[in-house]
């Protein structure tokens, strides 16, 4: 019952109430892993509402904040990180020379919400760093984002670097960002372009064999 309430409070972005309830549940001896489960379920709902055009950036940001608050509360109670099965791995980042992160963060949030393990390299990420992370975690999917036309060349360089490292055939590469389209995806040598965050999730799902 309380679990359901918690899911609702998070999905309705009631920060104070959600955090209070988590405290209450922990005090009453609820298994912290259960709380993690409810929270993940709530994030999935938030992601779904975003995809359906019901929620937007403010809700994603607020849900992220609430999750942060809940993890803080759980930290003392948790002995180990819960092992959750994942659909696949995605390495994601904004390419070198570009510091814009909003679009990339939305995609990362939705991928997480949809069960992917996401390795977010942040912004202004050099090609080398993409290559290193890819060889380290062996993702199925690489996502590159940019907001500036100047970053097209950086995307191209990054794809080339992945090729040179002999990793190109091991990953699918998707690109996105305001000035990006099919033409740019072809130009930089990516496999596909995602017009919005939802398309990015669908591409990742397709490539990881988890079609809807």
């Amino acid at each position: 019952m309380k679990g359901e309430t918690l899911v609702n409070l998070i999905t309705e972005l009631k920060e104070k109430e959600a955090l209070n309830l988590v405290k209450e549940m922990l005090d009453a001896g609820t298994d912290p892993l259960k709380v993690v489960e409810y929270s993940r379920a709530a994030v999935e709902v938030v992601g779904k509402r975003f995809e359906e055009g019901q929620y937007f950036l403010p809700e994603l940001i607020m849900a992220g904040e609430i999750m942060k608050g809940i993890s803080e509360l759980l930290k003392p109670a948790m002995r180990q990180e819960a092992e959750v099965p994942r659909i696949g791995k995605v390495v994601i980042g904004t390419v070198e020379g570009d510091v814009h992160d909003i679009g990339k963060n939305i995609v990362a949030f939705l991928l997480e919400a949809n069960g992917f393990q996401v390795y977010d390299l942040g912004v202004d990420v050099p090609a080398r760093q993409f290559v290193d992370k890819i060889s380290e975690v062996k993702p199925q999917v690489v996502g590159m984002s940019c907001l500036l036309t100047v970053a097209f060349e950086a995307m191209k360089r990054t794809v080339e670097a992945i090729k040179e490292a002999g990793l190109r055939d091991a990953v699918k590469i998707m690109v996105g960002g305001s000035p990006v389209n099919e033409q740019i995806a072809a130009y930089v040598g990516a496999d596909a372009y995602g017009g919005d965050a939802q398309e990015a999730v669908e591409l990742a799902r397709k490539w990881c064999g988890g079609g809807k």
Partner: protein
Amino acid sequence: MDKVKETLQKWCEVQGIEFSSAEAEERYKKTVQSVADVIQLKTPAKIPVYPFNGFFPAYYAGFTPKEVMYDFDKAGLAWEKYLRDLQPDLYVGPFIVSSGKVLDIVGYKIYKWPGNGLPDHQSYQYIEAEYVKAEEYDDLCTDPTDFMLRKYLPRVFTSFEGFASLPRLFELLELPLVGPHFIVYGAPPVKSALEAVIKAGEEALRWGEFLGSFGMRMASLGFVDPTAGMSKAPFDVLGDTFRGTRGIMMDMFRCPERLLEALERITPIMIQIGLAGFKATGKPFVFIPLHKGADGFMSDSQFKEFYWPTLKKLILGLVEEGAVPFLFAEGGYNSRLEVIRDIPKGTTVWLFDETDMVRAKEVLGDVACIAGNVPISLLYAGTPEEVKDYCKKLINSVGKDGGFILGSGAVLDEAKPENVKAMIEVAKS
């Protein structure tokens, strides 16, 4: 509305420009008349072309962004070459690249630019962060300018850290208060900040003189820079360089009343900022880049509650004084068209990026001039033929009956010159 008409009439009279040739004069007059016509939703003699250039002229002329930011003579050379070679009707002046030297002197911390953290060949970028805390809304609302001077400037300009110790200027009310007020100005932190102000002022003055004479000379050659000044939507003021996207979006949930109060509080200031350039130059456009109200950034109801009311007040405040808000709706604005329709007829220009232009024309066509939409990606990676086709389709579907300016959908930095040329030439035929 009548005031805007007055502004445009006066602008079309074209006074104080000594043209280099009869041809240049004809060209200039034709352009301003066409722009005045499209703003007022009439069919122009020629569809004006406005490649919304950022650093494009620099790349085109073979200079790096760093060179044009740090050497305004090079900026002048680049812009002049671009205008003479490609002949756009309207252009964005070299003010857009700013002065690297001024930025260095004041130590602007919240941007990176070539020469300060970025390679020479790149444009500048804003580093978003929470520069103002949610707890500071009360301070900001009590006295925005005081907040700017004593709290904000010391945070975002290394050279102005000393301003944090300034007393409130408002206390200079009575003789006994005057003496004590100035004590701190003699102390090293404030003194060095003031020295930086003077140094920045000297450099900016040289730069400003260049901008003034350059603009005059280009006008004499027949090229029109229609921009008088700039302002911002109040939501973007707080959401960009004060609270940041994350901050302001949390405020929408955590302290919506305080956010709304702050938005209202700064609106009259943003009107005055936009009007300052307009009153000084008589040119029509007040450039307003729109950021956080685009499709996907917030819901319709959030747009109506948080973004639009104060943007509308800004638009009305400018229009009432005769300025023409030139709104650059970066990203998509498809879901906002019905809302933004609520403005006086024939007084604004909306530069659209990814917005569906056919629908924009349907919804806004009888109230506002629409502009832009030629994709930056196409100008960067496409062919001249593709650009021409795109522009022709655009003109046929939304441009041929007026109320339309052809141009890039977003700021034009790197692009193939032959593509930009193709866009400019389409509207000539």
